């Protein structure tokens, strides 16, 4: 009964993955009949290439800060609106809706809002304020990108946290009430520890998702200005296709794969302690 799924998964997922590794050992351009085996040269080049290193560092920063912000905000908002009232339902929809919109379109929308001659800067100019270089200053653009990503995805984290909150039995809070605990104490000693499994899932999903940011980058900044917002996937696609260095692109893809896997496993393992305490 499992074999059809295994076959499809093998052919469309595992074989390409192995192929990516094989290609990464060549200098193939993707189409010619000849190529050379270059061993791990592509990997060595990747670690030396300033663009690749910059993209990798930036992607890591986006994933790290993005994960912290998405989860911090997601959890905070979840605690505020986890009730059942109509107002809460509306609020949930409002915070969640960007998640159902494609990252590409989110990127185009925010770039129209934040461009030097975009909506926000037009308003600022009319108010007599100096324009803000949201997308035209390398430093600013990085933060604009992170902000946009967080804006569009923390709603998803929020929903997962709400789900987690709903599964916490009410008796715990009732007991705390008797003890006269403050809301903060209740959060620290009941809510947060009991959310541990949901938190793990949230952390892993966000960090894995953000490590592969691309669509939003393409539409919002196209990697610029001055290459400041190029991400790993942006580099992979550019090197593989535009520069016709499929081998080099594949090497970067394999590195991304290893890093993503390692981080996911590391997060899961370090969170195991927190989760254990829940089951006790």
């Amino acid at each position, binding site marked *: 009964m499992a074999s059809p799924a295994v076959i499809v998964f093998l052919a469309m997922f595992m074989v390409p993955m192995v192929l990516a590794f094989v290609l990464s050992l060549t200098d193939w351009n993707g189409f010619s009949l000849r190529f050379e*085996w270059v061993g791990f040269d592509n990997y060595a080049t990747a670690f030396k290439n300033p*663009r690749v290193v910059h993209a990798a560092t930036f992607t890591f920063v986006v994933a790290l800060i993005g994960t912290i912000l998405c989860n911090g905000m997601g959890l905070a908002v979840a605690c505020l609106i986890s009730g059942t009232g109509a107002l809460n339902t509306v609020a949930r929809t409002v915070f969640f809706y960007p998640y159902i919109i494609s990252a590409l379109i989110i990127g185009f929308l925010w770039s129209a809002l934040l*461009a030097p*001659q975009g909506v926000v800067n037009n308003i600022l100019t009319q108010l007599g304020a100096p324009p803000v270089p949201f997308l035209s200053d*390398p430093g600013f653009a990085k933060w604009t990108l992170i902000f946009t990503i967080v804006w569009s995805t923390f709603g998803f984290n929020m929903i997962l946290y709400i789900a987690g909150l709903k599964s916490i039995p009410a008796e715990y809070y009732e007991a705390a009430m008797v003890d006269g605990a403050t809301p903060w104490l209740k959060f620290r000693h009941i809510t947060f520890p009991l959310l541990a499994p949901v938190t793990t899932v949230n952390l892993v999903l966000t960090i894995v998702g953000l490590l592969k940011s691309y669509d939003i980058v393409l539409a919002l900044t196209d990697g610029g*200005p*001055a*290459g400041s917002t190029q991400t790993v996937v942006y580099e992979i696609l550019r090197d593989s*296709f535009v520069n016709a260095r499929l081998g080099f692109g594949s090497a970067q893809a394999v590195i991304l794969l290893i890093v993503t896997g390692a981080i996911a496993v590391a997060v899961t393992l370090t969170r195991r302690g927190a989760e254990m305490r829940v089951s006790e």
Partner: protein
Amino acid sequence: MTAAALTAAALTLTGCGGGGGQSADSGKKVELRMLANISLTQTEDFWNKTVAPFEKANNVDVKIVAPGADGLAGTLTQLLASGDVPDVVEWLAPSAKLAPELVDLSKYDWAKNGPLAEQNKVDGKYYTAGVGENLQSTFFYNKKAFADAGITQAPATMDEFEADLAKLKAAGWVPLQTGGEWFSNILFQYISLPNVLAANPDWHKKMSSGDLTFSQTFAGSAKRYADWLKAGYVPKDAVGVKYADAEANFLAGKVAIYPMGSWFAAAEKAAPKKPDIGVFSTPVEHEGDTPRVAAALANTYLAMKASKHQDLAIKLIKFMTTDKTAITEQLSGDGIFRAGYDDYPMDQVSKDLQKLISDTPAEDFVSPGEGSGDTIVPAGFTNELNTDVQAMMTGKSADDFLHSMDDWFASNR
């Protein structure tokens, strides 16, 4: 190595069986697919209209394939990799990397005698034919601005150019229009590359081999550019300016000088309201030097080896590059110029550009950007230059800029 070649061959061959799926049924019209660059002036409509007479005369259907998110070069790699190869590719110039995929056109006189044919030879063979030339060392200027600043003549040397910028600024004009996106490199390239190539005729070769470095050849220009930024000849927030806005700014008479390829002439011609515009090419570094004019072969056509209709593909290329109407439509539609072809309505700017092409001896043309044919630097140079010029525009020093370019060459050679 042999094993590697075989594996690749197997991959390619097996792919051929299922890939394209465009077998020519005898009764059906043959379909030729042409991957073509789509711009504001050369739209899909434009292409369909231009190929229409060819379609009719040869009973074929020419289908225009538009490039995707990775640009035309990236799209071609994708199509080649997927085995879904178009018959004809417009816009790309041949390179050593692409040559094995291309049909050798050396036996055709029209390919050998076309514009810039020599410069685009790869390994001694002619793989492309083009329609005309794109000038890429041209500075369009607002005549009123020059008059306001008391400038009577376009600058002939870089020092004069610099003095003129100061005069323009003093007269209250924004001297230069540049911007972000893909065209940040243009101002820098236009003030540097033609003169670097004049001083180092073997620049491409020596850069590729590592005998020359970027900082050895571009230090002066980088310093000049940084000075101009400091002096405010380029507005501080220029890096955020989009291409369409840059063009609109200049056409609205808000800036004095707009460095841009000759394709700007098409937009200029179409603009309903515009100032009086003149044009000059890159001034020389020292008085008495011969000026170099950067020109790229425009609307280049390549016939793909994988095409099942090679003869027709070649025929289409011949039509696009030799048929009078087809040429004229492409020239006037996209600001391309070709010596001897001026038999269509031109405005003054176009006439000036036409004159610049006709007056420049063949040996004084140089190739812009990454070069052409066999004389090229590693692919991605223009892209990297663009990125690093943006870094300078946003506060990096000229030294950092040179460093960064040197690093790039070191890891991409």
